Each structure stands twice: as C-alpha cells, then as structure tokens.
C-alpha cells in the first residue's frame, strides 16, 4: 500500500510535463522545486539537529556563484605580473564545484559556530551570510559585484559528437529539478535513519545526555552542516543555471526567511515538511500576484508565519499525520506519504513518531 502510494506519486510527478501544457505553471514548479531542495537542506539543521541557522542562504548563494564562475571561467590578478586564468568548464563540473565549495563553507562555519548555541549561533550565522553578501558585492574582479554575472550557460549533457541536450526549455529543467529533489530527499531520508541521524536527533532532544552516552557533539553537528550546505549549494547551482544571472542580492536575508517559513510551515524535523511548505510558499506568491499587492502579500506571509507558530507549532505535516491517526487509527506513515509528494514512506513514519514524542 505504502510503496504503491510512493510509486503513484512519482508517476504523477513525472507525468506533469506531459499534460501540463501551460509552460508558465512549469516555470513555477521549477522554481518551487529549487527552493524545496534548499528548504530540505535547511531542515536537516533546523529540524533534525535543532540548530536555527539564519544564514542558510549563504550556502545557496556560494553554490550558485561557484557554479556560475566555473562554467563562465574567470581571471584573477594575483600580482601585477601573474594572472590566474580559469578557463570555462562544462556546466555539470560547475554544479559539482558548487556543491563542493558550499560543503566546504558548511564545514568551516560549522567548526567556528557550533562552539556557541542559541542566540549567539543565530546571530553568527546571520553575520556570516551578510559578510558573504558584502564580499560578493565588493570583490568585483571575481564576482563582477553589483554588475552581476550574466549569460550563465544552461546545463548541457551529452556524448560529444553523438547526442546533446541543452537545458534551455522548461521540460528538461523540470526533470532536472525533480530528479535532484528526489535525490536530496533520499539522501536526507537515509541520513536521518543512520547512526549519524539518530545522534543528531538525540542532540536536539537532550544535548548533555547525548554527549554523556558518547556522541561526539561537534563532529555530528559539523557533518550535518556539511551535508546541509552542500545540498543548499546544489540548489543554488540549479538556480543559477536556470535563471542565468546572479547578483549579490541572492544573499539577502529575506531568502533565508523564505526557507525558514517553508520548513516551519510544513513541519520541521519531518521529511515531508519542507516539500509541503515549499510547494505552498513557492506557488502562493504567483497566485497572490494577481489579487494582492506585494506589500499585502508580505504582510500575509508574516501573519501566516505567526499563526503557524501559534496554532500549529509543529507544522502542517505532523498535524495532518496526527489527525489521520486519530481518525483512522495507526498507520501515520501512510498519511504522510499521501499528504505530500515524495518517496520513502517508512522513513516518514518513524520521523513523525519522533515528532510526536517531542511535542
């Protein structure tokens, strides 16, 4: 039954471009998908380790910039006589580079900031994102600063001379984002069920206790940060090659807030939460575009965020899961996999239960 539901969902998601003839809706889904990946990566930190990182957009942006620069190539004047020239590489190399560079910064930030907790941690992560933004803005030799990197090539895959596919149009991009989404989901689902995942959750629940039973706190947190940052970097890479321009505004705090809202609304610490939240807040702005001015939209987001924290502190997915359990008895896992698109029903079940205990 659960497997069935999963495959059904996957078939549905893969079929969308076939019957969805309006390209505009595909565009919205592509964008939502990119932010869902970012939200899932944030969820790993925020939901599973319990660390409220408000600088997450830094990794997204670093991934985006790294991928764009590798695929565009760049010159850096090191001294007057020596200029480092980096020739353009294929886009898939760029995407990989984006993931690695973002992951490296995840490690660095993790090493530095997991020494502190609570409000200090939050403010350090915000500061980090601001510093990265200001570097992107002012290091003009590398990033073109506010002039933006434009004409970023779209992804091209193929066998030289035989077959080639350039991800110009909506449909291939949709599949690209969908596949990355599923991969990220699987990675996170496996991770949270692994030893490391259990260590992370133990840390969130009771750090002193976790430390006393021999969990290496800093190491677990840093590992989570690396995976999370690398995944955000992947989302940034996809973003930069579909939107094809990048400027320092990508580091604005408001994008972090968007990701946080997605995770919190959907349900932090659940596998499906960021997907549900990401879909809602990826699609809502496009729907509201017609009926409300952007200020009103933002006022509504702010109020929705407050309302969610007040009335559904665990988010939509856990609330739905418990509603389903109350009504139809056990089998919360099933409720999960049907309430949202995404594979891995067993995983969702266990995690929802953990959430239940938490509350």
């Amino acid at each position, binding site marked *: 039954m659960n497997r069935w539901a999963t495959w059904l969902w996957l078939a549905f998601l893969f079929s969308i471009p076939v019957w969805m003839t309006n*390209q505009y809706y595909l565009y919205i889904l592509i*964008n939502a998908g990119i932010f869902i990946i970012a939200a899932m990566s944030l969820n790993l930190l925020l939901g599973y380790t319990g660390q409220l990182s408000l600088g997450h957009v830094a990794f997204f942006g670093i991934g985006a910039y790294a991928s764009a620069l590798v695929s565009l190539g760049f010159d850096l004047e090191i001294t007057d006589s020596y200029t480092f020239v980096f020739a353009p590489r294929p886009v898939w190399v760029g995407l990989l580079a984006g993931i690695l560079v973002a992951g490296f910064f995840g490690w660095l930030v993790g090493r530095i900031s997991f020494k502190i907790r609570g409000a200090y941690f939050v403010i350090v992560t915000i500061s980090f994102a601001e510093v990265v933004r200001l570097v992107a803005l002012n290091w003009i030799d590398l990033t073109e600063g506010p*002039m933006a990197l434009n004409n970023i090539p779209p992804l091209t895959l193929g066998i030289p001379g035989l077959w080639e596919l350039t991800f110009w149009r909506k449909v291939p991009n949709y599949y690209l984002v969908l596949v990355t989404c599923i991969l990220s989901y699987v990675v996170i689902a496996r991770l949270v069920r692994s030893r490391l995942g259990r260590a992370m959750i133990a840390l969130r629940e009771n750090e002193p206790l976790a430390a006393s039973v021999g969990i290496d706190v800093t190491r677990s947190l840093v590992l989570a940060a690396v995976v999370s940052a690398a995944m955000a970097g992947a989302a940034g890479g996809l973003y930069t090659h579909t*939107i094809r*321009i990048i400027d320092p505004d990508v580091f604005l705090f408001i994008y972090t807030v968007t990701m946080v809202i997605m995770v919190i609304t959907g349900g932090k610490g659940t596998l499906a939460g960021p997907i549900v939240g990401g879909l809602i807040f990826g699609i809502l702005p496009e729907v509201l575009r017609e009926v409300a001015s952007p200020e009103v939209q933002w006022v509504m987001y702010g109020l929705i965020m407050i309302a969610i924290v007040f009335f*559904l502190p665990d988010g*939509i997915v856990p609330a739905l899961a418990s509603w389903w359990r109350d009504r139809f008895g056990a089998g919360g896992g099933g409720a999960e996999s049907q309430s949202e698109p995404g594979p891995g029903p067993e995983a969702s079940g266990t995690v929802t239960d953990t959430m239940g205990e938490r509350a």
Partner: protein
Amino acid sequence: MKTLIKSTGFALAAAAALGLSGTAGASEAIKIGVTQPLTGPVAASGNYVVQGAKIAESFLNESGGILGHKVELIVEDNKSNPKEAVATAEKLIVRDKVPVLMGAWSSTYTLAVMPKLIEYGVPMVVETSSSGKITTSGNPWIFRISPTSAMEAKSFGTKVDQFGIKKADFLVVNNDWGRGAASAFSAMLKSKGISVGVVETMDAKAQDLSAQLAKIKASGGDTLFVTTGVEQITLVLKQAKEQRVTHRVITTGGSSSPDQLIAQAGAAAEGSYHLLFFAPWFPEAAPNPDVAKKFVDEWNKRGHNFAGLTEGFRGHDGIMTIAAGIEAAGKAEPDAIRQALWGVKVDGVNGDISFIKQGPAGKESGQNVPNVYIVTIKDGKVALP
C-alpha cells in the same frame, strides 16, 4: 489550521477564476507587457515610469488605438529583484502572451530578463537601464531608448569646459549604475586632461555617508560627481554641507528629481547641477515641445507628483516607441515588431527616438541616442545654467 485551509482554498479559487478571465477577451486589445519595480527599494521610480506609461496608453486609445485595436498595458511588479524580474517576464510572455515588453528599470533586472527574450523570441524596449552590457552582449531583441553611462558622459563632455573642473571626485551607489557611471565619467574627464581624485561607493541603503564625505573633503577636488537615487542624493547634499565639503556637486543618471531635492535638502541643494534626460520645467526647450507639453499637462492633470516627471517620461516614450513599432509592423507579432522597431522614428518627450546598431554583428541590439540636459538649483528654483 483553519486559517491555512481557508487561505489555500481562497488561493485555489482565485487561480481558477483568473485562469478563466485570462483566456477571455484576449483577441480584442493589443497587449503590451510592462515589468517595473513597484515595491522594494527603487519602487518610487518604477511607479513613476508606470504612471508615464499609462498616460501614453490613454493618449494612444484616445486617438483610436493601434491598427484599430485598443492598447492594454499589463503591468507586473518585479519587486526590485532580478529573480522576480524573470518571473514577471515568464508570466507576461507565457501566460499573458504579450508580443512585446517594456522594462525593467535597473540594469540588473533588465539583464536578468534578457535570456528570456531570446528563449521566447519577444522584443523589449528598455526605458531606464544604463549598463553598457545590455546592448553589447549580442541580444537582438533589445531596443534601448535610455542612454548608457558612456553616452551620458560623452554628451556631458561637450559641455565640460564651461565648468572649469581641475580635479573631480566620485561618490556613487555600489551597483552597476553607480560604478558604471563612475568609470564612464572618469574616463571622459581623464581624456580632457582633468584629474580624478577618489572614487567612493555607498551601499544603496546607507544613510550615514559622513566617512565617505570626510575622505572626499580631504582629497581636495573641486567637483563631486554623484550617481544614485534621489533619496541618497538628498543625504549627500545635506551631509556635505554639514561637513563643509566645498565641492560643486554634479549628479548623473537622470534620477535626481531636483524638486524633491529642493523640498528635502533645502539650502544644501543650492548650487548643485543635475544631468537629466527631461527637464519638465522647460517643456518648451525640449526638441518636441508639443509632445513634452502635452505630457506634462496630462501628468499634472492626473495629480501625479511633479518631481516624478523626470522618471515618468521614460514610460511614455517607451510605450510610444512600442506603439510605433506595432503600427509599422502592421500586426502585433513579436518578430514583426522587432524588425519594424529598426525603422521607427518617434517624437518622444526626450527627443526623437530611433535606433542605431550596437553589439556583435548579426545579433545587434538597438540603441537610441537620447538628449541630455543640465539644470541647476538657484535660489530654491530649478534653472538652466
């Protein structure tokens, strides 16, 4: 919980309703897509451009529309953000099926939209952006009526002698516009044998500029070129006075709105010079005085902010250029409009609009050579120098 279900339900209903209304009545009017920053940091300017564009829309419809069809502007807010600029282009082209666009104010937003123009084959008239990259990157769907910073500098270069500048300093907003202006103007000044002192930047949101001004004061130049929005120019003038920076201030970029400076900076604005692309105080001095006068009168009649005219005219000229393109093409189809735009001659508020070729051969973009005006503030009033 309740709120959420309600709001999603509401959203879905709204989507359904809009989907229906979107298809109906599409055959009649000729649609023109407009993407402008209506909210966010540069919202004021974007709104002025839209007000000007709406005036052009009424003018066109009063005189019978284009090719017998009414003209309908579809205005989208790009929220002062390149990602949203792309979203508006997608929405306008794919969903509303507009054959031509006008936008997107800042160079960054315009650059963000440009790949979409190639992807879907839709031309865009650029009304404000100044970055050289826009017309030199090989995008044949771009037609720009606003000047690049280099053109503005060149035009100012013909009058630079009357200012007797020995050494100039720069204070520019830290974006493509500010930095582009600083490099174009300093190149022009150097070519005239004028030395350039410090080039200082400021964050677009910065309010305290005392550090930059202290540095500029110490540099010992006689003229300070300022490129930024009117809010920050106000701050520069006020704080320069506080710190007794004695430089003559010249603002570039055409967004300085001298009336707002007089109102908000008061005595500190006295004696400053401003490069503009339209001088609404003297419509009779414009190359097309009738067009300029008609536009200014309508603007005032509608009760729009007079200070916004220096931005608003761009919207008018952009829409009029597009209308001429559609008229010449004989049909509202993207590629036909693109080809027709090469031949248009429009009597704009700024002056005569026509396009020369720029960029790599075979995929040139269109660039207009606009007029540049210099005004000064004297005895609390705007005057010609």
